[in-house]
């Protein structure tokens, strides 16, 4: 057994999940089994491998073999221009408790 009850409770706390007592043991067993399986990643030597942080390769080939390298490496950033954003009312309308222009939540600061 790799994952303890305490591990489950720690992770649930980090993830803001308020687990019912009977859920704790279920998830403990399941996470233990799944993480046990994931342990097979330790078999590989990855000491000289870069992590994959970009989805698009630097030099990709299109459907007809034509190079589309230009599209690969550079992120496509839009111009930094201020544009009006008029969705505030529509967004607040979906909030469980809104007091325009705010979202209202339980009191966080005691004084």
């Amino acid at each position, binding site marked *: 057994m790799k994952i303890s009850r305490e*591990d*489950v409770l*720690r*992770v*649930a706390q*980090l*993830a*803001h*999940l*308020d*687990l*019912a007592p009977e*859920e704790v043991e279920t*998830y403990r067993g*399941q*996470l233990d*089994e*799944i*993480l046990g*399986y*994931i*342990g*097979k*990643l*330790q*078999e*590989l030597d*990855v000491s000289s*491998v*870069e*992590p*994959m*942080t970009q*989805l*698009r*390769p630097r030099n*990709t*080939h*299109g*459907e*007809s073999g034509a190079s*589309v390298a230009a*599209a690969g490496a550079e*992120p*496509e*950033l*839009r111009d930094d221009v201020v544009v009006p954003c008029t*969705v505030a009312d*529509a*967004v607040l*309308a*979906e*909030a*469980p*408790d809104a007091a325009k222009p705010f*979202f209202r*939540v*339980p009191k*966080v600061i005691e004084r």
Partner: protein
Amino acid sequence: MSAGTPWTIATVRDALLAKKTSARELAKDFYARIERRNPELNAFLALCPERAYAQADRVDAAVAQGQPLPPLAGVPVATKDVISTRGVRTTCGSKILENYTPPYDATAIERLENAGAVILGKTNCDEFAMGSSNENSAYGPVRNPVALDRVPGGSSGGSAAAVAAGLSVVSLGTDTGGSIRQPGAYCGIPALMPTYGRVSRYGLIAFASSLDRIGPFATNINDAATVMSIIAGHDSNDSTSASVSVPDYLAEMEKPVTGLRIGVPEDYFGAGLDPEVKAKVEAGIALLEKLGCKRVPLKMPHTDYAIATYYVVATAEASSNLARYDGVRFGLRVQGNTLMDMYRKTRERGFGPEVKRRIMLGTYALSSGYYDAYYLRAQKVRSLIARDFSSAFEKVDAILTPTAPIPAFKLGEKTADPLQMYLADIYTVTGSLAGIPGISVPCGKTAAGLPIGMQIFASHFGEARILQLARAFEKAGGFAI
């Protein structure tokens, strides 16, 4: 249309131009079909007739005035419930968004409507697209229209079932680890996952942002290609969408396949593959060889590590993306004494078991002391899996595999064991991790009549290649091999 022949984009267009039907009559006919079949299939979670009829009337006015019709004029379309639709309830199959109505449309939806499509409604799916059977929906499972006691696959089970049952002509699904391709295989229809960045994710409610893609379900390759030609292309609202030009898919797909090199990785035909699935996929490959393709044996040595890699990367991203559901800005709120208490109660009540399991798995993999051993290592193995593909595509034009190791299983058969459910994603998650496009095409049936899917991968932005092979396969009768 006779009962057995499904409507296609082309037959809808012909019928409208010949004034044999109107877009409004067609929408009405599809809503009648949905009313008849949906109680049994549970494919739709919400319908939007007002919006659909308004759009149909615009199409009918264009027909009456003799205006040129856009490519999807009057075509009834369904969309997975993780894709935002302005004014139409969008739940992601979750209780936490039970009453959520987006204030905007996803780019893919906007493009479909601009092309004349009639959006009928939202389809059922695994909660936040997390699942391989559609049994993780908070609104009940979808049934497979081909075999009602079986799952339609997941997570886009409702979108696959809707098209397979003739409740929409085409539909949109999303694919993170196989969620378009596998339900396509289980329901016996073509289902395409485009290259990462080919279709804008703007308005797609995030599960795993480096993996999520939007793509079509259809009954034929022409329809899949037509939808792709509309939804593909750069969108300034999604910085990860590519500005690679969109080829003319309909022209490209008719090119002959003679001389194309098709790679067959032995790693995809080993233990765990159902013998009937194996036999049909082998027959499918043989058919393409008969059409002039050259078979090239391949080895992709890191295939066996794909599931472990995927379930670290995807759950880590999910744990971050789903942090936004806390009862503050949208969706469910369960009152608490403190802010923290409110967060916890809301998330405990709002999320189902699979979503909680994945949030915890991802949180664990990212947590202090475990990050290097899990998340960072998985990102490195992801590079190795992507490298397997890039090396393969130096030798071949496409890669052929089964879509799933087994055909559609029975409802409830695999729900007790999450790991066993994950392991069945083995052939689809590889392409997801590599960012390449893949399609599942029907490839005959088992003796019991269950559909089998054959998967075709191509290199980045190679959708035209995929469609070309799929189209040749379709024309040669491969779907019913």
